């Protein structure tokens, strides 16, 4: 059976060109970049180049502002804990949104246990934070605001630059989780006006296990991983050279093709959304209709539960995901959908289809073809559906 991958927000395959760039750094060029001998200097050079590339791609002022980490989650943890612990004498208040990724959300919950105060800004029905709410939440003790660039479930893009302006005036540090946006829409730290930014390679056709935290020069960051002097004493551990080289290459490629990919993905996404909304009763689009990631479509099908929808799609060769938390072993439905004011029943029935650069119109047509019979079958089985 031909398989159709529509879960690009979860992860993407490594681009063969990226893998090719990585391959020299396993068997042949393997030195520890901290070593002063020729093996080490070789990989140090690759590391420096990758850092310069990433700095350039995201508009950082200096390569030293780029910190390589082991994942997007680690970048988020490091930004938030790093600032919290370093600026505690200035204040103990952090502001975030109600629909952040768990890497931000759980880190904030952890810091609450450590005595910090956290405000979780509400979002509207489309998933947007209101900058006016942020303004109101600011206090003398606010040391950090962390708001994601775009949401991983519903794709809504936040008004980051607008928020940054408010914070710049008050000299409050601003972090954004750009794990979903990097490589998909333009991400430039200068234009966004952020002080810290997280990204992860595996979301833009790079390898898993490597991420970046951008931290503007001068920001103090207590390390999350203590130890050796790597990454200017900010993140210990022998550098994952192959992964870092892959991240830089993937970012370069993604940004090169961005205008083109973004346009075609948006078209395909809109085609999918329009057709689903037309074809079905009791369906709603989650997230903002236009202010959303090019590849993201997220629907709620009333009366049915997400996992059974996914399993049926999988049986038809279609890989998708859901906000349904049952899939991850917890019984809570997505805090993102609930945070947007969607009721439990409907939140449980969400279906996220995320398109990628290899997605074709034929694939979307196939989805549109098989979806009705699956939805009908599940609704016929549902005690909530009475037609």
């Amino acid at each position, binding site marked *: 059976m031909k398989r159709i991958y529509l879960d690009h927000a979860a992860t993407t395959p490594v681009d063969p060109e990226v893998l090719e760039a990585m391959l020299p750094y396993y068997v042949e060029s393997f030195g520890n970049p901290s070593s002063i001998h020729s093996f080490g200097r070789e990989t140090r050079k690759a590391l420096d180049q990758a850092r310069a590339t990433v700095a350039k791609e995201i508009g950082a002022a200096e390569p030293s502002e780029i910190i390589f980490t082991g994942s997007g989650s680690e970048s988020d943890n490091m930004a938030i804990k790093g600032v919290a612990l370093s600026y505690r004498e200035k204040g103990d208040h952090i502001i975030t949104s109600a629909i952040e990724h768990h890497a931000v959300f759980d880190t904030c919950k952890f810091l609450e246990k450590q005595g910090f105060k956290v405000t979780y800004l509400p979002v509207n029905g489309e998933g947007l934070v209101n900058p006016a709410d942020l303004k109101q939440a600011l206090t003398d003790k606010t040391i950090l605001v962390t708001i994601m660039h775009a949401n991983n479930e519903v794709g809504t893009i936040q008004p980051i630059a607008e928020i940054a302006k408010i914070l710049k005036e008050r000299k409050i540090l601003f972090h954004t989780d750009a794990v979903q946006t990097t490589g998909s829409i333009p991400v430039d730290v200068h234009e966004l006006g952020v002080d810290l930014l997280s990204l992860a390679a595996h979301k833009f056709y790079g390898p898993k296990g490597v991420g970046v935290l951008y931290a503007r020069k001068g920001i103090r960051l207590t390390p999350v991983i203590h130890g050796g002097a790597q990454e200017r004493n900010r993140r210990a551990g022998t550098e994952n050279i192959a992964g870092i080289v892959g991240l830089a290459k993937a970012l370069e490629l993604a940004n090169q093709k961005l205008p083109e990919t973004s346009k075609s993905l948006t078209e395909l996404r809109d085609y999918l959304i329009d057709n689903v909304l037309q074809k079905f009763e009791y369906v709603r689009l989650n997230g903002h209709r236009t202010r959303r990631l090019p590849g993201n479509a997220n629907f709620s099908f009333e*009366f*049915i*539960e*997400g*996992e*059974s929808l996914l*399993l049926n799609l999988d*049986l038809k060769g279609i890989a998708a995901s859901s906000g*349904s*938390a*049952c*899939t991850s*072993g*917890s*019984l809570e*439905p997505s805090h993102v959908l609930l945070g947007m004011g969607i*009721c*439990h*029943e409907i939140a*449980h029935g969400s279906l996220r289809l995320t398109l990628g650069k290899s997605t074709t119109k034929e694939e979307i047509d196939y989805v549109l073809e098989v979806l009705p019979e699956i939805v009908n079958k599940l609704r*016929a*089985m*549902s*005690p*909530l559906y009475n037609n």
Partner: protein
Amino acid sequence: MYTDKVMDHFQNPRNVGEIENANGVGEVGNAVCGDIMKIYLQVEDNRIVDVKFKTFGCGAAIATSSMVTEMVKGKTLEEALEITNQAVAEALDGLPPQKMHCSNLAADALHKAIQDYRSKLAG
């Protein structure tokens, strides 16, 4: 993640639907939790002669519902009440640990339906 048996019952659930004049109906779960199961019984002479279900829930929820209906058909009420959550899960060759809560629901719904039948009988 799921066993072949679970996938079989998920794909081809047995006894889906309602029984118009069911003399025992049991419902458990709620939309907040994400699982709702409703079991309809037709009991005659203390024996379950027909059973149907409707379920809103995950793959395990659907499969356990389907399995429990298969297991009780033709059984006396006493026999049916002996069916445990564990037995349903075992009949499906096991469930992922985090899904065991769903197999609980299937037995619960059955027992509630039997209760309903008995209370109607008594009333």
